[in-house]
């Protein structure tokens, strides 16, 4: 017995004690009938080979460890960015439990979202009654300012029509006739979470701008000088949106953040639970029609929303997760161009500080090879920053990346000598990445929490940037956009790099001659 009350051992150490080690050995020997060790070792080595990689890349049907989630998750992400809004997911209730858990694990915050709890009878007869009752319950219980409806694969397969259902619910008196219930169909078998963000964002704008599903006249655009801002699905939304607000405020311009979820996922612990906090007001959402232009930080996350906005008479600007100097330069130049304002001196100074930081540290990063995976825009932004740092983004992989995205990333590679040996992988998953890391190794891997399995299997040090991050805390509170954000990303990369150098030089009397205190 190793446990003791004075120094309680939990799973980290308890199971290394001899009695447990013996228990594991006996279990394996007597009952598990697992393959012999030699065979396991042999197959493990085989999975590292070029031959295995070819087999792996020949896969046509199986997906293993994908770096993407489904549309409805993005739908919830977009909806909670509006003032007093509760997302209502029409479909089976288990999905909502998953979305809520997923966001809570990443942001360490509650996520409020309801479901119409469809079961077998709804599968047979359709989910209309679930919608009628559900909207009434949500409206009475949670007193939201708005209910944003989206779907799951179940509701989509049986063909439930949200527009008709919401209309009928209003006729039946579940909710007042004039109550705002924007909606979007978000089938889980089309696209990914970024598609869901796009559909709901468009659905909400459409609701307010195009006459609330035919119940009021469409708004008439009265152009003003304001700028709209769309963040896209972004694991750093808390830090990023606040940083963008700071930048806009420094410019001194009118702006609307459309879908501002920076407060709802960063509520204080002060004795009160805020189900709703912050968010874009419904009034601002409607007025956003009048803005001069809309800037999207993520082109591939707003593929339908941006054209919809453009059709309504505004200029639209699509960026790709601007991380680093050039990315931020583009953002600021666009803001300056659109508003006619000068770039604030303070931001210029920040730029110089980021360049200074890069100059101080670039020698360590120069020529290092990186593998990156994540959402298409994030991958692009990171790859661009790495090229700026003199690093080589050797493998860039997005499970939800399109051909067009791949072409754009290739063009980015072509624009820099550091991109010469780099390759882009649209539609591939993390098991493909595993093969790449074995057959064409890199120095560092950048990705979300799931990358820790790749780090373990291939020994490639992981820098955690992406969504979701479950196993490290509070990263989402820091921006990755703007010059300040670039500095954060630079520091995260450097920290991991120096840790790796230290770990590599730590053996006394063998490698520790390079165990330096000054770097």
């Amino acid at each position, binding site marked *: 017995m190793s446990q003791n009350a*004075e120094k309680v051992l939990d799973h980290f150490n*308890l199971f290394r004690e001899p009695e447990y080690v013996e228990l594991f050995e006996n279990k394996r020997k007597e009952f598990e009938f697992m393959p012999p060790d030699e065979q396991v070792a042999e197959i493990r080595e085989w999975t590292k080979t070029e031959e295995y990689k070819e087999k792996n890349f020949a896969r046509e049907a199986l*997906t293993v460890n994908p770096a993407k989630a489904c549309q409805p998750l993005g739908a919830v992400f977009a909806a909670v960015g509006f003032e007093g809004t509760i997302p209502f997911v029409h479909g089976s209730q288990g999905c909502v439990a998953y979305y809520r858990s997923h966001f*809570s694990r990443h942001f360490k915050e509650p996520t409020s979202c*309801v479901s119409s709890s469809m*079961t077998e009878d709804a599968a047979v007869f359709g989910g209309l009654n679930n919608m009628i009752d559900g909207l009434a319950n949500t409206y009475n219980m949670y007193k939201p300012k708005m209910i944003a409806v989206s779907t799951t694969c179940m509701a989509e397969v049986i063909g439930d029509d949200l527009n008709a259902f919401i209309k009928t619910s209003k006729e039946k008196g579940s909710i007042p006739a004039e109550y705002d219930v924007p909606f979007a169909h978000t089938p889980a078998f089309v696209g990914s979470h970024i598609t869901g963000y796009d559909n709901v964002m468009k659905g909400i704008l459409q609701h307010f701008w195009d006459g609330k599903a035919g119940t009021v006249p469409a708004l008439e655009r009265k152009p003003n000088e304001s700028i709209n801002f769309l963040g896209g699905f972004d694991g750093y939304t808390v830090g990023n949106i606040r940083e963008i607000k700071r930048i806009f405020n420094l410019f001194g311009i009118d702006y609307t953040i459309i879908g501002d979820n920076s407060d709802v996922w960063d509520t204080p612990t*002060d004795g009160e639970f805020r189900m709703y906090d912050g968010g874009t007001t419904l009034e601002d959402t409607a007025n956003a029609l009048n803005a001069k232009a809309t800037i999207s930080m993520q082109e591939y996350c707003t593929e339908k929303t941006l054209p919809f906005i453009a059709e309504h008479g505004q200029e639209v600007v699509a960026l790709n997760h601007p991380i680093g100097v050039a990315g931020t330069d583009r953002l600021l130049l666009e803001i300056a161009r659109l508003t006619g304002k000068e770039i604030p001196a303070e931001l210029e100074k920040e730029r110089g500080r980021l360049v200074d930081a890069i100059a101080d540290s670039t020698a360590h990063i120069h020529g290092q090879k990186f593998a990156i995976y994540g959402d298409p825009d994030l991958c692009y932004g990171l790859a661009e920053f790495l090229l700026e740092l003199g690093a080589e983004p050797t493998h860039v992989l997005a499970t939800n990346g399109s051909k067009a995205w791949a072409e754009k990333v290739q063009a980015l590679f072509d624009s820099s000598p550091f991109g010469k040996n780099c390759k882009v992988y649209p539609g591939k998953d993390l098991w493909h990445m595993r093969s790449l890391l074995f057959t064409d190794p890199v120095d560092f891997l950048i990705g979300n929490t799931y990358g820790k*399995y790749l780090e373990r299997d291939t020994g490639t040090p992981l820098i955690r940037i992406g969504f979701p991050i479950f196993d490290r805390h509070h990263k989402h509170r820091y921006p990755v956009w703007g010059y300040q954000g670039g500095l954060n990303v630079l520091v995260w990369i450097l920290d991991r790099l120096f840790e790796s150098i230290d770990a590599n030089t730590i053996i006394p009397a063998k490698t520790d001659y390079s165990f330096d205190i000054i770097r």
Partner: protein
Amino acid sequence: MSLTVEQVKQRNKDLIKEVLEVYPEKTAKRRAKHLGTFEEGKPDCGVKSNVKSIPGVMTIRGCAYAGSKGVVWGPIKDMIHISHGPVGCGQYSWASRRNYYIGTTGVDTFVTMQFTSDFQEKDIVFGGDKKLEKIIDEIQDLFPLNHGITVQSECPIGLIGDDIEAVSKKKNKEYNGHTIVPVRCEGFRGVSQSLGHHIANDAVRDWVFDKAGDKHPEFKTTPYDVAIIGDYNIGGDAWSSRILLEEMGLRVIAQWSGDGSLAELENTPKAKLNVLHCYRSMNYISRHLEEKYGVPWVEYNFFGPTKIAESLRTIAGYFDDKIKEGAERVIAKYQPLMQAVIDKYRPRLEGKKVMLFVGGLRPRHVIGAYEDLGMEIVGTGYEFGHNDDYQRTTHYVKDGTLIYDDVTGFEFEKFVEAVQPDLVGSGIKEKYVFQKMGVPFRQMHSWDYSGPYHGYDGFAIFARDMDMAINNPVWGLAKTPWKKAA
């Protein structure tokens, strides 16, 4: 100032009334049946259960897929579990349950991986059977040491009429009897994850037991063989349980399903006794093992020294004196550790009030562990319990305990606000709500990344964690000094 039992009952009644007033009439009527107060002497907790959740409320429940893939099948380590359908379900359940296991992931074990058919629109239109066949071929090609494959159906599979049984049979033949198990656990089936547990159990019966034959002739039984059923090895729970059974002289031939392997499943009918921890999720297969193979089963509870000792003696009661003496020896061996744990933590936790809301067995089973620390359960309820769970709960709860079945987020907040417990034990979706309110919280599904909590080794961790949650300095910081003064 503590209330009398009668005052507590009146308060609960008022509280329930107040909560129901917010709902539309039809909903209030339905929800009223799920909320109540335990009356001593009654055969159950007096609430309705295992009924559909109401649309539009924030139910904490999951779905049948979550019950099958996330709980029962997913932890079987040497099999590959395909999340068959769109990408999401597999992604959200990917390694989120801490079912610890030992193995070389990606080579001979696969629990912390996500295999999916990643359905696209064309699969919905044309059906996914052909794709499933190809997926099984690719799995066989790329993961040759897998011992079996399960097909965990997501919602669309049943709706579009795919024949995963036919595909499984065909591929089973093609791969010389390789175990391939179709599981009809579409998320819309039933009212919660509970039906998924049942469906998963039935799939073990039909596709593992019935087809196992004499697959392991080298396996020799002894009179002391038992199987652990219904322990998912969260944070190593099944290991800190297994060690006690082995110390008392039993031989644990199988673990279900945390750290379990297909061979263990196949050999379970040869056990002399099945010891069942999570009654809710695995009573079905335990009953089947009794009916078909004559293996008796007994429930046990390894939370807290009182219940552990009771359980060890109950289990030993099925065996001879050697095992009975073994149980006494084990109880005596750990007694000093338990005393030291209680001596250390009880003074810090005495009299603290706890509200629980969990799944499976925990709304009742953990009560004993809290009581060992001098704590009191003032409210409890099941996410997906059935009537028999509420019957079993009467042995654990005190007169006047607030009971809430399938509690909604709204009700739970109101109850906690009014009752003001010192600790809430529930899941990740609830955790941050209550912490914002300044109420200490522990995740009683996943032990907040700590654990194990089962067994004697686990109780020390449980006690430490409860102290760490309740007596954490952070709760004293929640209110600003200026508002405190005001």
